[in-house]
């Protein structure tokens, strides 16, 4: 037993001795990963703000204050604000914008627009769309206008109908009260769009925000690339040492497990340190709290498993390569390729179907999944077991490869 514990202790010691080197290499890789993540985030959220439609509002020259107020109120409504930006401008500028495509539509507001709505005159506002090249966005705006007009039309019809009923039965006191009541009712039912449209976010990144998504794949990529800096610790041992261990009845898979535990502890410590630093930074920079998650015990255990799994794969690649330089090359190529196929660079729902199907069989898919579950504190037994399975597979594969190599000598 002493020899096993000593061997484990020596592997941990060797890994921690390499800590300064590993920190430097990890920081260098982290910069690379952040760059990839930044580009990915840009790609996924490409031009979100430019998707808004610029709508020109031309107010009458001696327009009343009610009209300006009404438009500023309208432009602040959440659903409208997300789609349109109302820009008050002169008629000429608005037409020019319409011609050069910078404006999607022009609303020409007549004199006393709001007063006429109140007194029932209802002078219509003119909405002008470009003659040619009507885009989807213009169409959307047209639909939005039509639905708004229908809403207002329905509300007005209701109010006027009640007015007529009250006048017919000579209930003069009832007119004002009924109008007030109906105004409120229509505003709360007909004009509140949130009742009509249930909001459901469907995202290529699943339940995660884009930032969370790239944090997950970034951690996995960082760990995989850090395998390059651990090549000295995880590379194939010289055959003489393997032979000597075998003579002492220390199975090679146990040596592999100890090596992986050593490296895993180093990276676990580094990540925990980064986590504590982030937690402390929250006090100084409250905006960090938007992305900071308080992890539970299961998540910490899963984090250990995630690192262990990734380095099992790294060790397997180095055993397979049988040379450190080939191992580094193979690790870099396989890591980026597998991460891409697993949807770690571009979400898998945006990848071709065949690539998605291949991704199901790759360990990187489950590394990312476990990472997702860690940062959302939702680790499932299924993902945990799959990751344990991959670790066993890699260590077994590495031991088998070592055995074959020994036989060849």
């Amino acid at each position, binding site marked *: 037993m*002493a*020899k096993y514990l*000593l*061997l484990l202790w*020596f592997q941990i*010691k*060797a890994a921690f*001795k*390499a800590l300064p080197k590993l920190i430097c290499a990890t920081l260098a890789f982290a910069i690379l990963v952040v760059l990839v993540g930044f580009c990915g985030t840009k790609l996924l959220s490409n031009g979100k703000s430019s998707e808004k439609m610029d709508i020109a509002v031309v107010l009458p020259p001696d327009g009343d204050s009610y009209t300006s107020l009404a438009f500023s109120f309208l432009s602040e409504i959440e659903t409208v604000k997300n789609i349109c930006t109302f820009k008050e401008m002169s008629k000429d500028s608005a037409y020019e914008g319409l011609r050069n495509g910078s404006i999607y539509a022009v609303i020409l507001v007549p004199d006393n627009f709001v007063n006429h709505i109140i007194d029932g005159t209802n002078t219509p506002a003119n909405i002008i769309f470009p003659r040619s090249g009507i885009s989807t966005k213009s169409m959307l705006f047209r639909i939005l206008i039509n639905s708004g007009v229908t809403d207002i039309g329905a509300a007005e019809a209701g109010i006027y109908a009640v007015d007529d009923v009250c006048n017919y039965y000579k209930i003069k006191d009832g007119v004002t009260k009924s109008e007030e009541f109906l105004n409120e009712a229509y505003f709360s039912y007909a004009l509140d769009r949130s009742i009509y449209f249930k909001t459901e976010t469907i995202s290529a990144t699943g339940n995660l925000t884009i930032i969370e998504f790239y944090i997950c794949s970034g951690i996995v990529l960082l760990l995989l690339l850090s395998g390059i800096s651990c090549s*000295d*610790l995880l590379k194939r041992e*010289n*055959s*003489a*040492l393997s*032979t*000597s*261990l*075998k*003579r*002492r*009845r220390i199975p090679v898979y146990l040596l592999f497990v100890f090596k992986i535990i050593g490296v895993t502890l180093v990276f676990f410590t580094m990540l925990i340190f980064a986590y504590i630093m982030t937690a402390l930074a929250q006090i100084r920079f409250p905006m960090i709290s938007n992305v900071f998650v308080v992890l539970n015990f299961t998540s910490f255990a899963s984090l250990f498993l995630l690192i262990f799994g990734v380095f099992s794969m790294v060790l397997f690649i180095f055993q397979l390569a049988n040379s450190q330089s080939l191992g580094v090359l193979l690790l870099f190529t396989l890591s980026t390729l597998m991460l891409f196929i697993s949807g770690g660079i571009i979400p898998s729902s945006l990848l071709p179907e065949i690539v998605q199907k291949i991704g199901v069989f790759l360990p990187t898919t489950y590394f990312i999944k476990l990472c997702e579950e860690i940062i959302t504190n939702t680790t499932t037994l299924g993902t945990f077991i799959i990751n344990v399975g991959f670790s066993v597979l890699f260590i077994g594969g590495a031991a088998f490869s070592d055995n074959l190599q020994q*036989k060849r000598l």
Partner: protein
Amino acid sequence: MGELMIHVNSICKNYGKNHILKGVSFYAKKGECIAIVGANGCGKSTLLGILSGSRKSTSGEILYDGKDAINSPKLFSDFVGYVPQDNPLMDKLSVLDNLRFWYCESTRNLNEDLKTGVPARFGLDSYKNYPVEKLSGGMRKRLSIACALAKNPPILILDEPGASLDIICKEDIKYYLKTYIKNGGTVIITSHEEAELDFCSRMYLLQDGILTELLDKPVGQKLMERMIAFHG
């Protein structure tokens, strides 16, 4: 010299259809040094691997001090200290840690040995905190021998110990081996070097899987002529 320490009987080793060892037999007494010579790739390392218990023979019998080692593999590590051609060391660890690892199953006291034992004899005490990867080839070989002798085995098997070492280191190792033999140890050594062969009690030639004793212990030109003559 007297008691029989090693008795190897009809050892065969096949890799698929290749017969590497074809019924190898020999013996060695306590305090004897046996040299095994032969061309590169003739199977010397395979034979030593089998004798040290790190490889399995296809058939045959190995007796250490009259005990059957093949059927009780623990005897290999109890009886044999093995120094393979490459050093079986953990490069990232210090000299002391490597020694600790090999001494952990030994009844010997490492701290005492660092003062008066084999590690001290090889000057390893001055390097005990050095990482192995920073040691010279000679010091690594000395450390490998010290590790192999951690359990104080009665048999020491060395696979070309002098390969790519300087003359001072070779002489130092040779001098130690003489002491080991004088103290009743049995040494089996493979080598291509005259200096390492001249203190052996007996010499065997391994060729085409067959081990033949060379009664006149030829070295240098004479040995080469015998090897060529064997091929016919």
